[in-house]
C-alpha cells in the first residue's frame, strides 16, 4: 500500500500550500516543535567538541572545536572492540531472525486451522512480556543448559525477543503473497522447501527490510541482556560500555567527555540511518500497518 503510494507521489508535481498567515503559523509551530526536540542533542554535540576542561555553560554553542573529548572518550571506552561486538551481535541476531521468523510464519499464514491460529496468538503474546520479568529464570535456564557467558550469549535472547513481532509481521505480509504462485510451483513439482525458499521468500523482501530495521534498532541499542550475561569488559557492546559513565552523569566536570561518548555510541546508527533513511521510514511504517 505504502510502496504503491510513494510511486504516485513521484509522478505528481508537488503543489505546495500558499503562504497564508494560517500556513505561516503552521510552519512556525512545526519549527518551534522541532527546535525543542533537537535542542538537547545540539547542546550535547556542541559540548562534545570542547576541551575536556572547558567548564563554561554548555548553552554557549559551538565556541570551540577540538577532538580532545572524543579522544579521551574513545580511549576510555575501548571503542573499536565495543563497536565490533555490537556489529557481530546485532548482525548475527538479525540474520537468524530473518531466516527463522518467516519459516515460522509460513505455516501460520498458509494453513487454515485452529492450531495455526493458536500458534499465531501464542507467538504474539510474547510481545507483552518484559525482559526484566523473566531474567531470573532465564539466567537459571542458561546455567542449567551449560551455556557459558560469552559475547554471543545475549544473541540468544535478542533472537528470542525479536520473534513475536517478526512472526506477526511476516505472517501478515505472507497473506498478501498470492496462493496461486505456490499452487503453480506445486504443479511444476517443487518440493515444500523449494517453494518456500525460492518462490515465497524472495517476495518477502519488504518485510525482511522492515524486520532488519525494527529489530536491528532495538538489538543494537539494548544494554540489558549484555549487562546481565557479560562479565568481561572486552566483550561489552557499545551500549553496555556506556554504563561505566553512570557515575559521571551528574558531574558537570565530566560532561564534555560523557557527551563525546554519547555521540560515539550513537554515531554508527546515525550514519546508517542517514544512508538508509527511506528504508527506515517505510520499514517502521510497514511493520505496523501491514500486520
Amino acid at each position, binding site marked *: 500500500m505504502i510502496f504503491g503510494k510513494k510511486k504516485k507521489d513521484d509522478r505528481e508535481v508537488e503543489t505546495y500550500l500558499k503562504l497564508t498567515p494560517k500556513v505561516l503559523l503552521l510552519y512556525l509551530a512545526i519549527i518551534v516543535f522541532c527546535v525543542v526536540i533537537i535542542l538537547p542533542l545540539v*547542546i550535547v554535540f556542541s559540548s562534545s567538541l570542547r576541551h575536556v576542561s572547558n567548564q563554561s555553560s554548555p548553552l554557549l554553542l559551538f565556541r570551540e572545536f577540538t577532538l580532545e573529548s572524543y579522544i579521551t572518550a574513545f580511549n576510555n571506552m575501548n571503542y573499536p572492540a565495543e563497536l565490533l561486538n555490537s556489529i557481530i551481535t546485532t548482525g548475527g541476531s538479525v540474520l537468524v531472525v530473518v531466516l*527463522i521468523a518467516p519459516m*515460522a510464519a509460513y505455516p501460520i499464514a498458509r494453513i487454515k486451522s485452529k492450531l495455526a491460529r493458536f500458534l499465531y496468538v501464542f507467538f504474539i503474546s*510474547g510481545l507483552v512480556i*518484559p525482559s526484566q520479568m523473566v531474567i531470573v529464570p532465564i539466567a*537459571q535456564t542458561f546455567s542449567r543448559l551449560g551455556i557459558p557467558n560469552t559475547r554471543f550469549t545475549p544473541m540468544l*535472547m535478542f533472537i528470542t525477543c525479536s520473534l513475536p513481532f517478526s512472526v506477526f509481521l511476516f505472517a501478515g505480509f505472507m497473506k498478501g503473497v498470492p496462493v496461486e504462485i505456490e499452487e503453480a510451483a506445486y504443479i511444476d513439482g517443487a518440493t515444500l522447501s523449494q517453494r518456500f525458499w525460492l518462490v515465497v521468500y524472495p517476495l518477502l523482501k519488504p518485510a525482511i527490510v522492515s524486520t532488519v530495521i525494527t529489530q536491528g534498532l532495538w538489538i543494537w541499542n539494548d*544494554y540489558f541482556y549484555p549487562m546481565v550475561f557479560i562479565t568481561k569488559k572486552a566483550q561489552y557492546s557499545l551500549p553496555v560500555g556506556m554504563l561505566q559513565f553512570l557515575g559521571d552523569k551528574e558531574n558537570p566536570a565530566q560532561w564534555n567527555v560523557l557527551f563525546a561518548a554519547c555521540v560515539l555510541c*550513537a554515531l554508527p546508527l546515525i550514519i546508517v540511518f542517514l544512508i538508509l533513511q527511506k528504508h527506515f521510514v517505510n520499514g517502521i511504517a510497514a511493520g505496523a500497518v501491514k500486520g
Partner: protein
Amino acid sequence: MKKKRDKALVFSNKMYLFLIPALSFFLILWVYPVLQLFYYSVTNFNGIDYNYDFVGLKNYIKIFENGSVINSIGNTLIYTLVVVVLSNVLGLAAAMALNTKIHFKGLFRTTAYFPALFSAIVVGFIWTYVYMPSSGMIASLISLFGGDGSTFNPLGDFNVALFAIALVEVWKSFGTTMIIYLAGLQTVDESLLEAGRIDGCTEWQLMRKVKLPLISSTITINVILNVIAGLKAFDYSFIMTNGGPGKSTKTLMFQIYEIAFTDQKMGRASAFSVVSFLVIIAITVAMLFIMNKREVEL
C-alpha cells in the same frame, strides 16, 4: 470439496516443520522461563544456593504487606498513561501537520524521528543533564531568562520525577508513533476528503468524521505499542533516578530488577514477576477487548 482437498495437498501439515527453529527458541527461552516464575515464586531461592526451601505464599504476602506491589503498579500505570496520551496526541498532531503540502517535510520528519535512534542509556544520560538543577539545560535556560534555575529539580521532586522520566520516554518514542500515523494518513483517499469539502465540511469536521475513523486501525496499533512500551518501563528509572526519590519512580520492572539483583532475593522477585505478569495480561486483554469493540462500532 475437491478444491479444498487440493489446498490441503499444496499446504500440507508437513509445513508445521518450518516452525521448529523459532518454536524451540520461543519455548525454551521465553515460555519455559515464564512458567518457572510460578515455581520459584514459592521458594526462598537466592540465585546461587540450590538448597532452597518452599515457603508457600510468604513471598507474596511480603510484597503486598510492604506496599511495594501497589506502589509500583501505580507508578507503572501513571507512566504508561502519560506515554500513551502524549505520544499519541503529539504524534498524531505532528503527522497531520506533516501530511499537508509543506516544504521541508522530510527534514521535519527526520528531526522528529531522530531521538528514536539513540540507546536508552544515552538518552538517560542526556536527559539527566537536561533536568539537572543549576547547570542543567532547562535550569540554565530559566536562569538565562531571569528565573531561578537552582530550584528547578524535577528528578529530585517526589511528585514530579515520575512524570519527568515519562516525558523522556515520550521524547524518544513519539517520532516512531508519528511515522506510523503518517503512513496511516497517507492511505486516506483524497477523493473522500474532496467530497467532504464539496458538502461543506469544515477541516475540523473532516478530521473528526472522516480521517480519524479511517485511520482507527492505525490508532489501535499505536496505542497498543505504546501501552506495551509503557508497561515495560525500566530504563529511565534505572539510569536516571535509581527508583527515587523515595519510591516514586519504582516501576514494576525496576522493582523486580532491584529485588533480584540488589537484594539477591530471586524467590521474592519471582513472586513479584508473577503479579506483574497477571497485571500485564489483565491490562492487555482489557485493552484488546475495548479496542476491538470500538473498531466494530465504527
